[in-house]
């Protein structure tokens, strides 16, 4: 049996906990605390450790899903969880004033994965903001990155599974490319 460790990262309130709950085979492990930073986000609870969920794959393989805390004072958790991680789903909340500026911190923090193609972007609440999908793609290109970008509703299982499918495809394609002898 093989196990694959994947991360969900992104700003506070982007839907990481919801996304893992939408696809995990069993109720996820949660580490939420009362949110006292209502200026940053109005939600009542916020993740301070990590969320953990699992998906069983055909053939007995298993995906292990780790949802990272969004606030940057928990960046130590991002570093710890990145050890051995195959890839990362980066969620954006497009209703925030500057979603690309928000995203920059996470792209930089998980840059090693982004550079090997092990990152996909899921844009939530697209219609509640003014940043287009094309703007995300152009911004990523400006960072020297070519990554899949999707609009998603993380409450919908199929949307989140689409992100995981794309991420695993990206990872496999990058691996095959690396294994291909140069002409």
């Amino acid at each position, binding site marked *: 049996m093989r196990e694959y460790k994947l991360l969900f990262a992104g700003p506070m309130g982007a839907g990481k906990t919801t996304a893992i709950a939408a696809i995990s085979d069993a109720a996820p*492990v949660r*580490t939420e*605390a009362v949110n*006292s930073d209502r200026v940053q986000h109005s939600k009542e609870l916020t993740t*301070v*450790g990590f969320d953990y969920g699992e998906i069983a794959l055909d053939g007995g393989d298993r995906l292990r899903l780790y949802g990272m805390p969004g606030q940057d*004072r*928990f960046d*130590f958790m991002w570093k710890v969880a990145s050890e051995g991680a195959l890839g990362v789903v980066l969620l954006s909340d497009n209703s925030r004033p500057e979603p690309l500026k928000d995203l920059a911190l996470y792209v930089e923090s998980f840059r090693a994965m982004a550079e090997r193609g092990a990152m996909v972007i899921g844009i939530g609440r697209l219609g509640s903001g003014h940043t287009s999908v094309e703007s995300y793609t152009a911004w990523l290109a400006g960072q020297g990155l070519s990554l899949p970008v999707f609009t998603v509703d993380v409450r919908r299982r199929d949307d989140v599974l689409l992100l995981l499918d794309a991420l695993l495809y990206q990872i496999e394609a990058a691996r095959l490319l690396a294994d291909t002898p140069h002409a």
Partner: protein
Amino acid sequence: MLDDTQLEPLPAHFGGALDRLLATVPALTGAVLSRSDGFEVLSRTRAEVPVSRLSALSSSMVALSQAALREVGMHGGGGSVLVEGQDGKLLLLEVPLRGQPMVLAAIGGPDLITGTLLWAARDCVRQLIQP
């Protein structure tokens, strides 16, 4: 002389509770009170302590310990985490304040006796909850 940090108006007895903790246990390097979501609210230190980083770490560690207890069918409320290394000890205690739970972190050197640390820190939590 103690270095103190107070970031916002807090119940007056909070400062006294931390002062008494450090007075009771001279081997303590410092005590940091944080909200359960990792924001520092009050500290008393005798040496350099990275208060804001410790606050974030404390909330994560307590939340993870509670999650671990839940997974094995135990209730995590009112719990603690003790981390020991060759240079000292770090004790994290939940402070179950209604509406805004907090975490108390107590830091001490290698000579600090664990029993003394546990007893004094738990007494401090009791004072924080019931002035």
